[in-house]
């Protein structure tokens, strides 16, 4: 069988793409970002954390924001896969006007459990997140306009865009 120029182009493309697949597979193996499916909570830890979350919520509702923030931080460190803890921590940070941490925690929460962005779910906190975005987005944009190389502001904006995409819905 005689190969023509087209065959050689295709063979080269196949070789490059196959090598790319192997490279991406090897480089990315084990580095999958945490998703809802993977970050299954340990039920035992979750049971231990439940009263602590209730306690932190009570602190937030009684206006003791600093104590609530400290409690939430502890819970998130002990159980990073607990979306409810991140949701609560995000709300506390938002009330403390610590917006960079608020959007970071909300992002973590939604990436662990998309139900928090779903208006049909009882966990829905979309309105709180939207209110936070309304407050913080102009601040992040201002910081970026003053210094386009501000990596922290860029990261904060990235979190805001992620939250906006999640709240916008869509099929994925």
């Amino acid at each position, binding site marked *: *069988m*005689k190969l023509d120029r*087209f*065959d050689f182009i*295709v*063979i080269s*493309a*196949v070789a490059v*793409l*196959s090598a*790319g*697949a192997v490279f*991406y*597979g090897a480089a*990315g*193996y084990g*580095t*999958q*970002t945490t*998703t809802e*499916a*993977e970050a299954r909570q340990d039920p035992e830890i979750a049971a231990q954390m439940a009263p602590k979350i209730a306690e932190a919520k009570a602190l937030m509702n009684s206006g003791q924001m600093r104590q609530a923030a400290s409690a939430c931080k502890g819970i998130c460190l002990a159980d990073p896969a607990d979306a409810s803890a991140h949701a609560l921590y995000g709300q506390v940070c938002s009330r403390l006007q610590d917006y960079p941490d608020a959007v970071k925690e909300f992002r973590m929460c939604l*990436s662990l459990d*998309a*139900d928090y962005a*779903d208006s*049909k*779910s009882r966990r829905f906190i979309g309105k709180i997140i939207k209110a936070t975005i309304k407050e913080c987005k102009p601040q992040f944009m201002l910081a970026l306009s003053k210094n386009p190389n501000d990596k922290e502001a860029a990261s904060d904006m990235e979190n805001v*865009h*992620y939250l*906006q*995409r*999640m*709240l*916008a*819905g*869509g*099929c*994925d």
Partner: protein
Amino acid sequence: MAVIEFVKRHKETLTAVAVGVAMGWAGACLACLGNPKNTGICISCFMENLAGSLGLHNNIRMDYIRPELIGFVLGGMAAALIAKEFKAEGGSSPMLRFFAGILLIVGCSIFLGCPIRMILRLANGDFTAISAVIGLVVGVWIGFQFLKRGFYLGDISSMPFLNGLAIPAIFAALLLGLAFRPDFLHFSKVGPGAQEAHIKFSLGSGLIIGFLAQRSRFCITGSIGNFLASRDKKVIISLVAFALTALAVNLYKGFFTPGFEGQPGSHLAYGWSFMGMMLVGIVSAMIGGCPFRQLIMAGQGSMDAGAAVLGMIAGGAVVQAWDITSTNMGPTVYGEVATLAGLSLVLAAGLFLRVRE
């Protein structure tokens, strides 16, 4: 009389415009009426929903039997029967077409949408879809290069009539499943699978679109390919009508939100969107139609398209169960590997399936 004469003379063009308008109108309206935003019609998303409903993957947010899918197949079948074009035929590499169906969904899931949703996303002002449009055009062009150089999947032969009824019968059974919702079928309570327009509107628009699409041979990738080959503007008239109608509805309803950020069901990995849609373009050109066209052809009795449809259902299960599908954060590692491996496989298959003189 002059009107009748005009309609008779431009019957094909008018049918092409009608299917484009129906699709644009239904695509935009279905999203307003309950389907996920920017996802009034999306074959790949709907296939993932269907696979979930059949219990083929474990994402409880993506389980639903979309009536639109049923409408497309049964509407296509009705049109083919009325026009006496229903033919049970097949035998042109059905297994390869099955795997092609899987790869179609893999490519779509990387971009987050099929070619139809790509246009709907653009019509909603989602400019992140631009890279996918370019990818699809490039993919179709590559696919046509293979066809020009002798790519051939084998002869199509007639089959006993009952074969042609298999896929429509499956979708008719799914309609019963949707109506009676037996325990073995799954339906989401939250997430995109729980976002649904009213069944009457979904099914009705599916039937109308399926009927018109069968008559006009509507196919996104086919239109692009024929335009690239012939530069005949007539062949993309339905695509233009589709995009403009969806845009008009979105502008009227106030759903047009132009920009790159905060778009529903999107991500900012433009390179991977390009690659994913390029895969879809190549595969579609090779098997003779985009995912939507495969459904219509399966409805008119093509067993080969039926194999591709079954492959698409399997693909819907695979991309969800193996975390191949992208998220709002972008493609997963598995998705990236699957895209590159898929492109590599398709090109290699193209090489082996060339008929040389």
